[in-house]
Structures are given as C-alpha cells and as structure tokens.
C-alpha cells in the first residue's frame, strides 16, 4: 500500500443561498486556493475526481461544466461520482495506489438553495413503494431519530445538546452558515419540524464547495511539512429499504471503522457527517468514540451542509487540524443515502 496524504484543503465561505455565482464561479476560487496550498503545479496533478449531483440544480451534466473551474487543457485524466466528494477522494486514493500518478485533485460542490432538497432526495428512494408517497429527508430523519430514542432511552434534550454544541463550535468556523450561542432549551423551544427533530437538529440549506489535494509518499513529504497521512479508508453500504434495517445503529459505519482501523490508536478529533443531531450519537457509538473525543469542532454538517461537499469537508477539517499541529490522529466520516445507508470512514494521522 502506498502512503497517500492530504496536502491541501480549501472550502468556500458557505452561504445559505448564493444567487451571484453559478457552480463554476463558486468553485474557481476554492480550486485555485487548494492547488496553491498544495505546492503542486496545476498541470502536474495526475488525476482529478469530483463529487456532485446534477439533480441539485436540475441541470444534466452540470458536473461536466464544472470542469471549467479546473482548466482541463491539455486534456486531463478525470472522473466523477454522482455522490458526495468523499467518495471521489476514495476513487482518487485507489487511483494513486496504482503507482503511475503521484497526486490528485478532489473537489465537491452543491447549491442546495436552488431546488427543494426534500423533493430531490425523495427521488433516491425506492421508486415503487416509497418515493410515490413523497417521503422527504426530514421525514426519514425523523423516523430514524425516533427509532434511536426509543431503542436507547436517550431524550430529545440529548439531541438538542448536540445541536447547541455544534452551533457554539461553529462560531470559530468562518465558513459555517449556522453559528451562535444557542442553548439546548433554545433548541427545544422551537416546534418540531418532524418530531422529535427541531429546526436546529437539522442541517441548514447551504451553497458551497470544497477541494482537497492528495499526494503520494515522497511528493507529499516534499510539498507539505506535516502531511495528513491516510492510514485507513473504507466504505460500506446497507440495504435500501428502511424497514429491513436497524435504524438505531449504523452497522456499515462500524464495519467501515473496523476496516479503516479506527480503534488501533487514540482519536484526537473526529469529524462526522451527521446531517441531524441524532446521527452524531449513532455514529459515535458505531465508531466506539467515547465522550472524551472531540467531535465536529468545525460545527459539522449542522454548521454548513453544501450537499455533495459536506463529507469531503469532514476529511478536510481533520486533515487541516493535523496540518496545523492541533491533532495527531483523527477520524473523518462521510455518509450517503437515506438514514445513514452508506458510510465511509477515513483515519488520518500526522507524524512528528
């Protein structure tokens, strides 16, 4: 296995709705920033992979147009996943394992303000027996939250405390959309949108982008003083139908975490792709993260949720804390599909 590291991470200053910039205009400064940070020339990068979802703006092949932000000339080796860019990073990591390239650019973006996210995510559900009923993401989130509280005996206050902590932590994140001094009582004081979930329990609508540069072995050491080495990375998926799964746990996250080697060292920081407060609690348990582990110091997805970039941002936020020396070993998680159906876990480490 080649040693691959994150040597650069950039994200937009996310906003709730950006009517001034189309996807390319939103991406250009982020890509320019990450390439500059990496110390690797734009035309030297060996492979480019992006994650996005054309349905977010209703434009087929919008991901192809997004390449305008990369300057794909002379023609580049490039790929795309119609899912969160954390999986684009996984594909880039696999490509780097082959040994014929030394670096990769990974980016993700989403303008979720453009359409109705609930209606869009409905279309990923079973087309015969579920989608025609109109089930949206807040609704299936509510179902899973209820299953979790019923099974574990945790309370709505436990959820509200996650929401309040995230809003507080996001104050230190200049790129977050939702931040502030919010108490659990404030969260509980609002009427539920889908009981037991209240507005602050649900990630905000966000427009934004993010990018990462990966480099192999010697190149990573040359361009980065403290590369964030990927020590393990794995992803697993569960069955599609909600009624055949145990919604109170995340078996796929536990399995991916095991395979990625989460438990083989101390975890200084974890960034979990929890789009609802209950998801953070489910994911902590699945990854065996105790109360002492600092989870989502960035504010997490509850602070900013540029769908399709949010998972990549979790990897970037852990890498960033390794780069700046505030952490040595961290876990990043990304999720896809309804109710944590598919989960990716990445273990990153810096060496002194």
């Amino acid at each position, binding site marked *: 296995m080649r040693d691959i590291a994150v040597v650069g991470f950039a994200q937009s200053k996310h906003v709730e709705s950006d*009517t*001034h910039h189309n996807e390319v205009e939103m991406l250009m400064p982020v890509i320019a920033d990450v390439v500059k940070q990496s110390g690797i020339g734009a035309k030297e990068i060996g492979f480019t992979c992006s994650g996005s979802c054309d*349905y977010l703006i*209703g434009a087929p092949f919008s991901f192809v147009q997004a390449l305008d932000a990369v300057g794909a000339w002379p023609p580049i080796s490039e790929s795309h996943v119609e899912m969160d860019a954390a999986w684009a990073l996984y594909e880039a990591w696999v490509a780097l394992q082959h040994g014929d390239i030394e670096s990769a650019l990974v980016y993700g973006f989403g303008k979720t303000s453009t359409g*109705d996210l*609930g*209606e869009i995510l*409905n279309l990923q559900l079973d*087309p*015969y*027996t*579920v989608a*025609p*009923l*109109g*089930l*949206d993401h807040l*609704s*299936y*989130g*509510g*179902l*899973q*939250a*209820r*299953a979790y509280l*019923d099974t574990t005996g945790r309370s709505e206050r436990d959820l509200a405390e996650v929401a309040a902590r995230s809003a507080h932590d996001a104050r230190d994140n200049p790129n977050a959309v939702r931040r502030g001094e919010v108490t659990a009582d404030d969260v509980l004081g609002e*009427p*539920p*949108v*889908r*009981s*037991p*979930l209240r507005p602050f329990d649900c990630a905000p609508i966000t427009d934004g982008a993010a990018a990462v540069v990966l480099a192999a072995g010697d190149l990573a050491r040359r361009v980065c003083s403290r590369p964030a080495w990927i020590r393990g990375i794995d992803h697993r998926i569960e*069955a*599609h*139908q*909600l*009624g*055949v799964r145990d*919604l109170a746990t995340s078996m796929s996250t536990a399995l991916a975490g095991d395979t990625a080697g989460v438990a083989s060292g101390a975890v200084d920081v974890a960034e979990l792709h929890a789009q609802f407060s209950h998801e953070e609690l489910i994911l902590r348990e699945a990854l065996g993260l105790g109360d002492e582990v600092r989870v989502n110091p960035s504010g997490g997805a509850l602070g900013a949720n540029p769908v399709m970039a949010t998972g990549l941002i979790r990897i970037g936020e852990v890498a960033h804390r390794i780069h700046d020396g505030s952490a040595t070993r961290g876990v990043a998680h990304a999720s896809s599909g309804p109710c944590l159906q598919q989960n990716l876990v990445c273990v990153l480490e810096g060496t002194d």
Partner: protein
Amino acid sequence: MAIPDHDALVAHHVLEFPGGYKRSLGPVIGRFLTELRDGKLVGVKLADGRVLVPPAEYDPQTSEATTGEYVPVGPGGVVTAWTWVPQPKRHHVLQWPFAWALVRLDGADTAMLHAVDAGDESKMATGMRVTARFREERVGHITDLESFVPEPS
C-alpha cells in the same frame, strides 16, 4: 467581478417528465401491486421462512433470490418507528397533518413505510397497532393503500 443583487438573474426552471415516467414492475413488485389493487397485502417468503414486506426479488441480507411464495399479511400491524408531519409538503401522500411510520404488518418480519392518518400527534406511539385503509378506486399503485389508521381499541 461583483454585481449588485438586482443584477443576479434568477429564472424558474422546471425539470419534468410530462405525462409521467413509466416503469415496468417485474413479477415480484407486480404481484404486490396486483394484490393491492384487490385490496390485499402480501409478503414474500425468504429461504429461512421469514416474510419480507414489501416483497423484493432478493433477500436483503443473503442476496439469495426470494422464494416466489407469497403469503397474506396484515391488514393490521405494529408501528415500529414514526414521525409527525405538522405541515405536509406538496408531494406528500396526505395533505393534512399526519405521521410517517414503519409498520410491521401481522405475519411480516420486516416493516413497510407508509402514512398513518392519526388525526393528532398525541395519538401516535411506537408499538401502537394500526390497520390498512384502502381507497375505493384502486389501480395497482402503492397509494391504493391510502394510509394506515389507528386500530380501534
């Protein structure tokens, strides 16, 4: 280049399949919806004897093909999870406050997703019993089952 807000043009854009998107159902979903048109709910047996509802072509755990043996389930069942919708969205199956629920029908080993027309959130509880309410006019669509309703106690 920065432009003032009023210069940032926005247009309403619709992505639509006019006349609808046609799907073939295959023998398994086709059987489920044919029975539904007749006002009946069925599941399919897995190799180990458990009953999968809604029926599917493959066992979600073992990936083996399901047996092709259909058994009646419901019309009553138990709510295993639920959430309340105070303000339904335009595509929701019910257009007044209702609950989504996972319902494990009597005779089934898995739960199916549908709506519960409970009237008020206070009527909902995990573990409660509900029963299927069918539409008068049925065509072979999941909404032939209009919703579940609390079972009269």
